[in-house]
């Protein structure tokens, strides 16, 4: 058996190398053709002048842009795997990966090599096409978000006018991928995991989108570029702290991470929806998750903490990119910290938290923000203030903060009342139980 499978394996290795060489060679030839013509500023017209077909010449910059935007998060993910493992290790008082390369930095690459040589097992009862489509879909849903991310004042994939809705639409493909994987695996644990996902991911999309409405409201724009530009005077985090918190909590739930990791509750469902996956397909689910956490950090940075805004961001775009990454990493680390510190919720607790607490708060918050923005606009009009810099944005921030405090007080009183009612109910139940027990 061994001797018969060996030449076959060499043949397949050879085919792989040839494919990789063709892809690499094509990319190098393309880059050579472009840089040889030395006209990076207006690529398509330059290519047309050099005798290219105008249709193809217009297509090349788009293709290169897509490749650039899409490979960036994939490359970052390789580093993130190391960051995440090291961070989790430190919190749990371990050392973490430290053998492969300096500080274990090459560990992810070693993992990739190992995963490449792992056998891909498809269970007998699986629905093959859907089973195979699920992992790429998982990664694609996260990758697609990056199309609208503004990296610097001048560099972004595309400035869609409906960027916010695009984000909500594209992010829910992840739910689809989880359902596809869970359903097609023909495994009861996987299916149960997928069912929980329907409940969890779908529910938390509501506070997520409700919180997303607040930056749209404040910026008067749905494009991500417009939302970042509107934060030049004041970050939305200071105008709408409750919306920031809501978005953070629900994005943590959208990734399906602790304390919301019911999807793959290791101790209950073994691994949830991805139990039957192995090798590279399993790795893709995980890569998608790691990438999603960082993407959420980037979104928090863009929507609430001013994206690329910082000193000299306009003069030196690279600095703007640096600011964006710093802010994203800040939210990313908070997310990791939460993940490694909190225990898991029960299913009913997760549902209660969403439908009975987060959704009402997000509705109240949206109404309050709209009202306070109306009052602030009226005040600015009568006082003749035009919001251009930090100080002219202070009155508006003040009004909106008052709105936030009102929401907080209402929520505080309401939760307190609910808690008292609950305790009373439990007290009564305990009383009746002892009465019948005697």
């Amino acid at each position, binding site marked *: 058996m061994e001797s018969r499978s060996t030449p076959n394996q060499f043949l397949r290795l050879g085919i792989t190398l040839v494919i990789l060489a063709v892809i690499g060679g094509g990319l190098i030839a393309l880059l050579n053709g472009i840089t040889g013509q030395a006209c990076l500023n207006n690529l398509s017209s330059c290519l047309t002048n050099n005798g290219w077909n105008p249709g193809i010449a217009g297509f090349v910059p788009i293709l290169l842009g897509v490749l650039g935007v899409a490979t960036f998060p994939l490359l970052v993910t390789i580093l993130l795997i190391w960051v995440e493992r090291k961070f989790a290790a430190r919190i749990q008082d371990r050392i973490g990966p430290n053998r492969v390369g300096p500080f274990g930095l090459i560990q992810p690459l070693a993992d990739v090599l190992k995963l490449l040589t792992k056998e891909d097992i498809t269970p007998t009862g699986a629905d093959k096409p859907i089973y195979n489509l699920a992992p790429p879909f998982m990664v694609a849903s996260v990758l697609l978000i990056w199309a609208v991310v503004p990296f610097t004042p001048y560099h972004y994939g595309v400035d869609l006018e409906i960027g916010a809705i695009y984000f909500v639409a594209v992010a829910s493909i992840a739910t689809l991928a989880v359902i596809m994987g869970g359903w097609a695996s023909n495994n009861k644990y996987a299916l149960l995991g997928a*069912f929980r996902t329907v409940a969890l991911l779908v529910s938390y999309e509501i506070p997520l989108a409700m919180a997303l*409405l607040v930056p*749209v409201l404040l910026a008067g724009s749905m494009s991500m570029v417009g939302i970042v530009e509107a934060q030049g005077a004041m970050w939305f985090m200071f105008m709408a702290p409750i919306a920031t918190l809501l978005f953070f909590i629900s994005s943590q739930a959208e990734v399906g991470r602790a304390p919301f990791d019911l999807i793959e509750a290791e101790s209950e469902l073994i691994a949830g929806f991805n139990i039957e996956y192995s090798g590279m397909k399993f790795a893709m689910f995980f890569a998608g998750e790691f990438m999603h956490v960082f993407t959420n950090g980037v979104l928090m940075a863009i929507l609430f903490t001013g994206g690329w805004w910082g000193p000299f961001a306009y003069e030196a775009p690279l600095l703007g990119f640096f600011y964006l990454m710093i802010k994203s990493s800040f939210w990313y680390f908070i997310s990791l910290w939460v993940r490694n510190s909190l225990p898991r919720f029960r299913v009913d607790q997760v549902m209660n938290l969403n439908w009975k607490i987060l959704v009402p708060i997000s509705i109240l918050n949206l109404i309050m923000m709209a009202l306070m923005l109306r009052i602030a606009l009226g005040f600015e009009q009568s006082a003749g203030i035009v919001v251009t810099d930090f100080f002219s944005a202070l009155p508006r921030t003040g009004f909106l903060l008052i709105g936030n405090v009102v929401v907080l007080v209402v929520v505080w009183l309401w939760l307190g009342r609910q808690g008292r009612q609950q305790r009373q109910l439990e007290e009564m139940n305990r009383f009746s139980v002892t009465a019948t027990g005697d």
Partner: protein
Amino acid sequence: MTNVLNEWAFIGVFFLLAPLLPSLPIAIAALISPRKPNAIKQATYECGLETVGDTWVQFKVQYYVFGLIFLVFDVEMVFLFPWALAYQQLDFFAFAAGLLFIFLLTDALFYAWGKNALEWS
């Protein structure tokens, strides 16, 4: 016009490439990884027990209820986005209209709450 078309061409190319990029390592792995299937290896993994009955079973009705409530709110969101977008240019009436719209749906949420549709048990 061409600008808008270019933007959507970008999204279109992205939609085609985004599933392809993660498929590439999977394809490479499929080519170089060993392939020695057997019946026991490919059996459904349920903690070592043999799987009993059909996997695609009936499930809790609660999932449907949450799905329905979600649908209501998701549609609401689609209408709220344009409202939020144009809000700063509109007068006080827009706030009242938005309030009424949100109120109607919040009412539905509290109705579902009162009917115990939000209980998980």
